[in-house]
């Protein structure tokens, strides 16, 4: 429960910080930090226009998308707290739950019968498929290093005390940041600010949603950011600290994460669409490198 509360608190300021950092980096003042939530409240008060081509799938897609994200956050551990919902192999459940949300989101997009949404759905399915191995190799490595397979126990026993585990920790944080960027459809895979439907991936899938459904999707996106931030914070926060110190460090890490995303988006160009699969598979190769290091560590082949 602690994780859910903290994640909701983070999600309040996360998208706003990203937009603010991007604006400041391009020399403007930018909107307020709570602006995305003001947009959400406006959307909640509006009606909807539903396409005649769609069916019940279109209506259930945003609801299930948000529900899977909420339940996924429930499983996430918080360092030092006893997670009563964790179990062996729960990161597999985490990944597949998010995949369920994505599945319904994709077919909801294809439901509209628009060619643009089909394009976006196709690319989104491809990229989320390619990023799965990186996630599993990473958690396999962390599991092998700590000897446990539930997220709660992995993060509890993952001490960055040993020199080599610091390297693995750095690679893990780097990979989680990149995986978060790919899964949330950010630069360099997808540009959230593009206005050309042909080049959109995630944005084009929400073109036909309006009103309450669109508000649900925005909330889901913000929560997803907070979720990945929680994973990164889990890698970095030491278990032995006092609770107040842990909470402060958590919010500091989330703020830094948001600012880092803002900076990376401002100073990085979007990759060509054809080069994206290659880029995402590079993440798997780097994860493999971490696995090699862990393997050598476990088998005492490193001094």
């Amino acid at each position: 429960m602690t994780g859910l509360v903290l994640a909701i608190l983070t999600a309040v300021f996360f998208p706003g910080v990203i937009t603010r950092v991007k604006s400041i980096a391009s020399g403007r003042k930018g909107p307020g930090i709570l602006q995305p939530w003001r947009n959400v409240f406006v959307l909640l008060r509006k009606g909807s226009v539903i396409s005649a081509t769609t069916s019940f799938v279109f209506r259930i897609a945003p609801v299930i998308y948000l529900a899977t994200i909420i339940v996924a956050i429930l499983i996430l551990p918080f360092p030092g707290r006893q997670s009563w919902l964790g179990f062996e192999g729960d990161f597999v459940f985490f990944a597949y739950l998010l995949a369920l949300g994505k599945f319904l989101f994709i077919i909801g997009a294809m439901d509209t019968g628009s060619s643009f949404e089909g394009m976006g759905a196709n690319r989104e399915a491809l990229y989320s498929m390619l990023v799965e191995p990186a996630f599993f190799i990473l958690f396999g490595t962390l599991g092998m290093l700590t000897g446990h397979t539930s997220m709660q126990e992995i993060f509890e026993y993952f001490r960055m005390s040993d020199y080599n585990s610091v390297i693995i920790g750095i690679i893990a944080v780097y990979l989680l940041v990149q995986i978060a960027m790919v899964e949330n459809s950010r630069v360099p895979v997808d540009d959230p600010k593009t206005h050309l439907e042909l080049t959109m991936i995630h944005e084009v899938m929400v073109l036909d949603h309006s009103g309450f459904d669109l508000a649900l999707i925005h909330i889901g996106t913000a929560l997803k950011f907070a979720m990945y931030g929680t994973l990164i914070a889990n890698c970095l926060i030491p278990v032995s600290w006092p609770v107040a110190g842990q909470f402060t460090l958590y919010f500091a890490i989330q703020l830094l994460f948001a600012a880092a995303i803002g900076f990376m988006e401002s100073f990085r160009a979007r990759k060509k669409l054809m080069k994206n699969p290659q880029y995402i598979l590079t993440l798997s190769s780097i994860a493999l490198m971490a696995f090699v290091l862990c393997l050598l560590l476990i088998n005492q082949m490193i001094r």
Partner: protein
Amino acid sequence: MDVLIVVLFAITLIYLSVTERFSIYTNLIGTQGLLLFFLAFSEMEKITLMNLLFITTETLVFKVLVVPYLLYRIIGKTGIEKVHQKSMPGLYSLLFVSLGLILSIIISHSLHTTTINMIYFIVAFFSIYTGLFLIITHKKIFSHLIGFLVLENAVLLLSLAIGSQMPMLINIGILLDIFVSVLILGIFMMRLKQSAHQLTMLKDD
């Protein structure tokens, strides 16, 4: 500290297999030289001052400064920018290079020795594989040169892995190889200028 440097070296190799611009290749070769310099420095307590000076000159001056400068001059003068002709797209190169990583792990493990530094050996093997892979799959002669330089770095890393000292002979050999390849090829390419981008692998007709 040295483990981190070696891991960064492996990551530069992964990056090398997917990029397409020659300037990025040059940057990566320079980065590899810098990483090797730091590695050599960390082995400092085992070698004499004379050797240390030699290593410093070789890696820092030569690999980090001279070679990339020459490569940039070649790129500028001949105007070749990108790898246009590859026999396989970037995705497959990446897959093969990852396969090379797994192969080098398996081979290193089956050696069953304790005297060599395992992580250095694995990355050295991986670099040999990547260098050879670059030479085999690329068609332009500039890429072959880069592959050759990667092979030289691999040999240096291998000497670090196996011995605790770096014999003078190995270093002189590496230096000679680099001299020959970069200088002569550079002069050759700069003379040709316009038609240098048509230089591909040698063929018997």
